[in-house]
């Protein structure tokens, strides 16, 4: 399944852009933002789910990356570094706000719900708004009992199309650990679905 969050940018090209951005080339940094914004939104969306928090956090992540870029030594890929900033920022926000990380239909106004799903509508012959909203709500309820990390793993894998290696990078885990945890998380979600009659 091709990643809905887009293909990860080539690390080689990123290296050159990062090098230029470290030398105060604003256009190079803007290009990095364009390349990675979808995946940053995907990762943040796996943790937060509230749209109003999402854009703020994504912006905060890139601003933080910009001001820390001089200290980034390129030993890891830029994307890995950026995703780690994203995960940390999201968890910091959750700690600070002590907000419920899940989103239910009732949390969204009609207009917000329309915005969430508007992209899917464009030129797509998939399910309509209410179906997608219902699917999303059902999934969120099934994921409610999972550990935060397992929940993020499942969303990144099943919704955003991340590979096991990418998830391992984002969460700073070993690939085998991700696989094992994914299997366990799937089991729990399926059991929960059976229990709730979905």
């Amino acid at each position, binding site marked *: 399944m091709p990643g*809905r*969050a887009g293909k990860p940018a080539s690390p080689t090209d990123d290296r050159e852009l990062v090098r230029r951005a470290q030398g105060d080339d604003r256009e190079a940094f803007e290009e990095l933002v364009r390349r990675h914004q979808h995946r940053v939104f995907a990762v943040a969306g796996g943790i937060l789910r509230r749209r109003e928090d999402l*854009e703020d956090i994504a912006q905060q992540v890139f601003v933080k990356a910009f*001001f820390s870029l001089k200290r980034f030594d390129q030993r890891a890929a830029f994307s890995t570094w950026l995703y780690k900033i994203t995960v940390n920022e999201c968890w910091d926000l959750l700690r600070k706000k002590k907000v419920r990380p899940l989103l239910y239909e009732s949390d969204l106004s009609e207009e917000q719900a329309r*915005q969430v799903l508007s992209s899917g509508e464009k030129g797509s012959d998939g399910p309509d708004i209410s*179906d*997608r909203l219902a699917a999303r709500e059902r999934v969120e309820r099934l994921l409610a009992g999972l550990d935060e990390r397992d929940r993020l793993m499942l969303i990144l894998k*099943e919704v*955003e199309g991340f590979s096991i290696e990418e998830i391992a990078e984002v969460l700073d885990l070993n690939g085998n650990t991700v696989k094992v945890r994914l299997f366990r998380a*799937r089991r729990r979600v399926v059991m929960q679905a059976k229990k709730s009659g979905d």
Partner: protein
Amino acid sequence: MWNLLKKSDEECRQLQDLLEESATARPEAVCIEELSGDWPLVRRKHLADCGSCQEAAQDVLATREIFQGVASQAEEARPWFATQVMEAIRTRERELALPASLWSAFPRFASRLAWVATAVLLAGSAWLYERPVATPNKTPAASTQEYLFEAPAPPMNQDDVLISMAEKNQ
């Protein structure tokens, strides 16, 4: 026995790796046979014999079905986002530059500030030195104070201190 268990674990792990790869490679697969269609015979045999691997394969397919149609946060096009980020960076830079420019102005006024501070200090200490000192008045309460803090009368004999208040009252 232990070796047999270990071998079985290893086979399950390998099959689950294969399952994960096949699930990614065949997003359209809806049944286990479609997922395992081109697997080596030994793996298919293991899948047929192993209950936990069958369960894992079914979970992969069931989860995929559950997540079908869920909107991704990354799908939405946000063409303005990069511009917005660059604007936020410029704003932050301006905010950071403001205190820095305040501090850079400080050395220019430092000598004048030192003179003003010296003058204020001199004037202040001269005023404090010249200020008339008020003589404290002796209050009438001072004599009663001594009485209030007078020590209580000593007990009549040494054993009095060992008698409790209840016994004393009797």
